[in-house]
């Protein structure tokens, strides 16, 4: 037992860096789902898309920051495509996301040209933080953490501006938002686009962190993100905007430590999906087991 903890403890910093990088996917799942009431699966395709775009850009000699921006843009476009398929053809949001993700797999393969590429020689964003007093991993934690803080503060400001309040109203009561003179579709395009951008952003950081890009890197990322979001929301609550925005980051940090613990405890990596599934079910089912009186559930939309 002690050995399990010592293995787990040794992995904490590496896992922390990973979880901070992946928390942007959780953010990309949270925004459509919680703020726009537009359950969206595009992240599963946008994450590797961001990785692929960033990797190819780096290989072509594009500076790291610009490569990340390109990845974000590609993710933004993927998100707007999902929104378009839903709004124009009235295809269910979940199906629209699955369609885009499926198509993106082929697109990602086209972008990369082969299933995986190593990125050892290219200068990556984390290399800018290669100071003697800072370990590589600490640099990753610092950069991803600061970027996360920047995202949260920017989004918090945005959602308190006139346009941001309109966007929240679109998710809350789209008929009302429309009756008050707001272009509902524009808010959805922008919101879903930014969410796709966040997922791609995460992918672009991940390929630079692991110096490696793989077309299959997005497999199962969505359900991981959902599990992280559920855990985060169970901790922070959702009453205030800041709590809702912080939930993806807190959830991601805790979720990936839990996964790391499972690995340290000897769970085979191939069994992790079962563990993740159980986490999600537990987080969704938990309140029904704890609360004796039937009350309105926070997660009723996916639980139904």
């Amino acid at each position, binding site marked *: 037992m002690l050995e399990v903890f010592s293995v787990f403890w040794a992995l904490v910093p590496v896992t922390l860096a990973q979880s901070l990088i992946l928390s942007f996917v959780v953010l990309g799942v949270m925004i459509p789902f919680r703020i726009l009431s537009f359950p969206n699966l595009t992240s599963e395709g946008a994450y590797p898309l961001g990785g692929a775009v960033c990797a190819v850009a780096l290989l072509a000699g594009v500076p790291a920051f610009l490569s990340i921006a390109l990845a974000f843009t590609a993710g933004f476009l993927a998100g707007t495509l999902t929104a378009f398929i839903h709004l124009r053809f009235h295809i269910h949001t979940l199906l629209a996301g699955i369609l885009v993700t499926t198509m993106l797999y082929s697109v990602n393969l086209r972008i990369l040209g082969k299933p995986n590429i190593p990125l050892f020689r290219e200068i990556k964003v984390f290399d800018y933080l290669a100071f003697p007093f800072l370990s590589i991993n600490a640099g990753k934690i610092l950069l991803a953490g600061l970027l996360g803080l920047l995202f949260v503060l920017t989004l918090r400001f945005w959602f308190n501006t006139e346009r941001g*309040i309109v966007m*929240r109203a679109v998710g*809350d009561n789209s008929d009302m938002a429309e009756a008050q003179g*707001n272009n509902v579709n524009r808010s959805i395009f922008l919101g879903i686009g930014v969410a796709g951008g966040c997922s791609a952003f995460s992918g672009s950081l991940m390929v630079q962190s692991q110096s490696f890009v793989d077309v299959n890197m997005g497999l199962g990322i969505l359900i991981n993100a959902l599990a992280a979001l559920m855990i985060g929301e169970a901790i922070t609550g959702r009453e205030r905007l800041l709590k809702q925005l912080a939930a993806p980051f807190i959830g991601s940090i805790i979720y990936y430590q839990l996964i790391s613990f499972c690995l340290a405890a000897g769970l085979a990596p191939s069994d992790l999906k079962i563990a993740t599934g159980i986490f999600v079910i537990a987080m969704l089912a938990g309140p029904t087991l704890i609360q004796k009186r039937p009350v309105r559930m926070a997660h009723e939309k996916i639980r139904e």
Partner: protein
Amino acid sequence: MLHILGAQKTFFSGKPDEKVALDGLNLTLDKGEFVVVIGSNGAGKSTLLNAISGSLMLDSGSIHIGGHDVTRVSVHQRARYVARVFQDPMKGTAAGMTVAENMLLAELRQSKARLRVGLTTKRRDWYREQLSYLKLGLEDRLDTRVSLLSGGQRQSLSLVMAVMDEPNILLLDEHTAALDPRTAALVLDATIRAVDIFKLTTLMVSHNMQHAVDYGTRILMLESGKVKFDIAGDDKVSVTISGLTDHFSVKTDRMLLGAEYA
């Protein structure tokens, strides 16, 4: 202020359950008129309101509001002319957002949403003042989520949101029907006051004959998508409930109840 010419709307056109909701309806409203719209279920009252607000497009005919042709204009672009209070208190407000945020959304009807801080101190003071007229204590609950308010409070908020920017046309779609009698009276009172103060051109759908007799400057009765009768001026002043109900060709239970209940 409002001109509707030859409004035609057919649902399920060409199918066995075809339904003509508006059948060449003409209607002209002058500024400041307060029209109570009555009629049996299926007479076309809701379709008329939906057509004016833009949530339904006419098959043919035209709608002008304040000189603008809005026949093909979408709901959100029409919102600067038309404000609407729905029957369902849930429909007119965003439940997960605060009272102040809802007021802001209503205020933005007249202007474009910009990238600047929404709830400024100046705005909050103005909202507090607007809400204080209701005398429901809502002015002290600016940061309360609307989902925590009662149905009557929500409907009163919807009303304030609808009238605060003095819309060209105010549409009231049985907006007190879902409330208990006391609250309904309160909301209706606030409505009458607001319409009076701002001299709003108003269309109020009601099943309550007493309301039609007591309020407004004009009564419009619809039947099968047409105006069955239209009384204003002295005729409106001298109208009685029994005089009105005689005009209903089909007396549904609901209308009878409405008449007695009042």
